């Protein structure tokens, strides 16, 4: 049996969050009535000309700076020629020989706690095509050109990933990064963030790359992992059966969980790239780069280091909190309200809150418990108003929309009993009611202490301060 090595490179299309299109003034808002957001330029009318959106260029540079890439001083737009009904001009304006972002890299965290550097070959600006609608019109194809001309940043990785899990970690990292940079909304359902995977296999130890297949139509991280795993198995089976992998484009079908051939290399278009004579080369100065670098927000890696160093969070928790910008923003909001409670807040976000969100299939932005509400709850734990156990009960009530932590504690009378007189009388009752267990304790059976605590907490409906109960119970039992 030969051991196989998987080699994966990803091409990610991130839709840039500009207000208007890359070469026209039409709006980029998603979900409008078909063809209401396409002007004469987007429709490729005779005589129209493209004018480059400067904001798209800024966003591309932002990305390049964030992955420590070379920014090409003079990059060039080229025409990629092919016919398709949703490609109005018969060519796509893209970048070919001189992309705006040159080689860069970023680090991903692996499951075993190690990190790995993944190379980014290039990132280039291009316009998106429209959409062909095949289902709505029997025997006809509808064309919606609202998306035509939307700016895309195509981010091409080196073939550095060795498993589906690594590919997903890289894709998630890019996904988080573009959101941190506020250059892409990251919405995969709406197609703002799309992944194509180039997958090949080779015998372990072999240097040369195997023949690759490009898998398209992957619209979630889960599908990315599944599509790659399917494809790797398919290729290994082929080779082990004595057949060859063909270089081709394959489509991932999520319903059937398989990839299938779309077009082979032989059928591939000759795109006849050449520099677009309608657009000037894009010149980027060192000053531009300096200005953009200075305006960068705190990036996930920097945040992660700060959480570990300043807040004392574990590597693992710091990584989880920074992977998604929305989660990090939630954490930051909570932290702003209670700067000293970082570790406790992190535990609640990554524990109970994440669990509840997953169960309800909600994003953290849609959480019924806001960061401020959660912090108020955590503060009540920290100031001993309630115990951690009661807090879970309050959390549940907050999730159900019963109000703020304080309101719920008040309404349900959940305030912790810290009055030693009150606790003492409960202890006395419990000791009096359980003479056998008292005997056992006196005979040296320390374990019955737990029984007493349980009885006391039950009696107090969980409100007695556990620390006080422990201390006082011990003293009482010894003096009985």
């Amino acid at each position, binding site marked *: 049996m030969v051991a196989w090595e998987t080699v994966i490179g990803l091409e990610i299309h991130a839709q840039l969050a500009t207000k208007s299109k890359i070469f026209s003034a039409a709006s980029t808002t998603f979900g409008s009535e078909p063809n209401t957001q396409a002007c004469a330029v987007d429709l490729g009318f*005779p005589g129209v*000309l493209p*004018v*480059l959106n400067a904001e798209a260029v800024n966003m591309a540079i932002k990305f390049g700076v964030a992955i420590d890439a070379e920014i090409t001083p003079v990059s060039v737009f080229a*025409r990629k020629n092919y016919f398709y009904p949703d490609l*109005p*001009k018969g*060519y796509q304006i893209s970048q070919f020989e001189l992309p705006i972002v040159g080689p860069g890299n970023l680090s991903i965290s692996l499951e075993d706690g190690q990190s790995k550097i993944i190379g980014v070959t290039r990132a280039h600006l291009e316009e998106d095509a429209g959409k062909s609608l095949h289902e709505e019109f029997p025997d006809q194809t509808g064309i919606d050109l609202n998306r035509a001309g939307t700016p895309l940043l195509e981010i091409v990785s080196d073939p550095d990933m060795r498993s589906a899990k690594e590919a997903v970690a890289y894709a998630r990292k890019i996904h988080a990064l573009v959101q941190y940079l506020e250059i892409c909304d990251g919405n995969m359902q709406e197609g703002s963030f799309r992944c194509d995977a180039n997958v090949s296999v080779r015998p372990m130890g072999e240097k040369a790359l195997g023949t690759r297949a490009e898998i398209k139509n992957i619209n979630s991280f889960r599908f990315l992992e599944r599509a790659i795993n399917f494809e790797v198995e398919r290729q290994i089976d082929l080779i082990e059966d004595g057949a060859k992998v063909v270089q081709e484009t394959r489509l991932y079908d999520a319903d059937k969980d398989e990839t299938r051939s779309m077009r082979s290399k032989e059928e591939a278009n000759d795109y006849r790239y050449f520099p677009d*004579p*309608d657009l000037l080369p894009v010149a980027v100065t060192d000053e531009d780069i300096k200005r953009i670098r200075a305006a960068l927000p705190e990036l996930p890696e920097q945040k992660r280091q700060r959480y570990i160093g300043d807040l004392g969070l574990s590597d693992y928790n710091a990584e989880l909190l920074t992977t998604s910008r929305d989660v990090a923003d939630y954490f930051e909001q909570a932290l702003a309200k209670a700067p000293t409670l970082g570790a406790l807040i992190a535990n609640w976000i990554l524990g109970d809150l994440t669990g509840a969100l997953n169960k309800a299939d909600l994003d953290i932005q849609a959480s019924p418990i806001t960061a401020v509400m959660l912090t108020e709850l955590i503060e009540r734990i920290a100031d001993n108003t309630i115990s951690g156990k009661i807090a879970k009960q309050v959390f549940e009530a907050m999730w159900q929309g019963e109000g703020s932590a304080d309101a719920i504690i008040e309404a349900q009378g959940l305030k912790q009993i810290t009055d030693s007189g009150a606790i003492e009388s409960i202890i006395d009752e419990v000791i009096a009611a359980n003479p056998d267990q008292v005997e056992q304790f006196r005979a040296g059976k320390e374990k019955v202490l737990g029984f007493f605590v349980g009885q006391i907490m039950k009696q107090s409906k969980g409100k007695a301060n556990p620390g006080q109960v422990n201390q006082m119970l011990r003293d009482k039992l010894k003096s009985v």
Partner: protein
Amino acid sequence: MSKTISQIQQGLTKRDFSSVEITQDYLAAIKQHNPAINCYISITEDLALQQAKAADQRIASGEAQLLTGVPIAHKDVFCTDGVRTSCGSKMLDNFVAPYDATIIGNFNEAGSVMLGKTNMDEFAMGSSNENSYYGSVANPWDHERVPGGSSGGSAAAVAAGLAPAATGTDTGGSIRQPAALCGVTGIKPTYGRVSRYGMIAFGSSLDQGGPFARTAEDCAILLNTMAGFDPRDSTSIDQPVPDYSQGLGSDIKGLKIGLPKEYFAEGLEAGVASVIESAIDEYRRLGAEIVEISLPHTKYSIPVYYVVALAECSSNLSRFDGVRFGHRCSNPQDLEDLYKRSRGEGFGEEVKRRIMLGTYALSAGYYDAYYLKAQQVRRLIKQDFEQAFKQVDIIAAPTTPEIAFKLGDKTDDPVSMYLQDIYTISLNLAGLPGMSIPAGFSQGLPVGLQLVGNYFDEARLLNTAHQFQLSNDWHLQSPEVK
């Protein structure tokens, strides 16, 4: 009907006639003579009269600009809002543009009156106007002969007095060559001087719009309206536009005029050569200093042009696919059938030939040998001119190697047709401004003198032409319009 713009302006100012009256005169002349000359594809009578009426009101209220109320014809390559813009092609026979080209907007703002859209070679591809879906155009000097192309309709309209001025475009000589063959004045400005927005593209890195008129003085007025930076055209250049009319005063004593020896070699008809020599003598008399120069890479200009222009056109014309506008074949069986038949039926022979050649030049494996090599040689051609303009102020040469040829003479021989542009094409490759002005006659047909200026030196170019026109009246000769 051989008025200049300046004469029309004076007439309007002095209220000798109204804009409506002069517009009606032109429309009547067009109705009478266009069937024979065929220089108009569309005559926009209602719009013209409406614009003329508005212009008269503007003149009455004292808010007139120089071109207010002046009739003009536009090459059908320029998009005109609400008016069919055919580009001389069956493909766009049904295309009504939803917007105005920038220069059309400029003329509308100035208050000029659009008489109609002029005939042209399909998608501006040709040197004889015989490639128009709307039929060939007769040269007003001899109806058996071509007017030149691709802006043949515009040149013929001005020559025949069916418009005092017209717009055109020049990718390889499409303003200068028909101006020469029809005996009118035309200027192709520096690449980037006039906005290309709304001008249907042929070779994007070469195309440049410009005016035709009877005189250089009129061309200056027209260029004042056409030139300028346009934020909608990234290749237009943000540089102030001088007042070209203001620049027409000074004499040309001491002006250095270069004669490129490569332009006076084999292939130049004797009759044309002798007219050009007389014109050069006249410049000498006017005080210019004549020197011989060399543009050594001239011989490569035709092959380079036919790679670059055709590569660009093969891509530019992809948008005509029968999907969103223009000709669509009936009952397409599938997508491929829709493309093949719509384009096969919509485009004429020459356009198809050029798309095929351009596609080939950009194909994998040929790109380096053709397109890339052509771009390298293009730089050498440009450098030739840069060297030359270190020695001289203006370059003079024949505009065309021959006088107007007979209709049908060259239609079966594309290469001999392509050679018509041998003296004009280099300027487009270099991006330089050039003019053609009437310089005399050979066998009773007009001969054009080509003048070439340095980048953005249109003012000097126009004045050099103007001084010539002050000292003779070749430009005022008119054919007897039949």
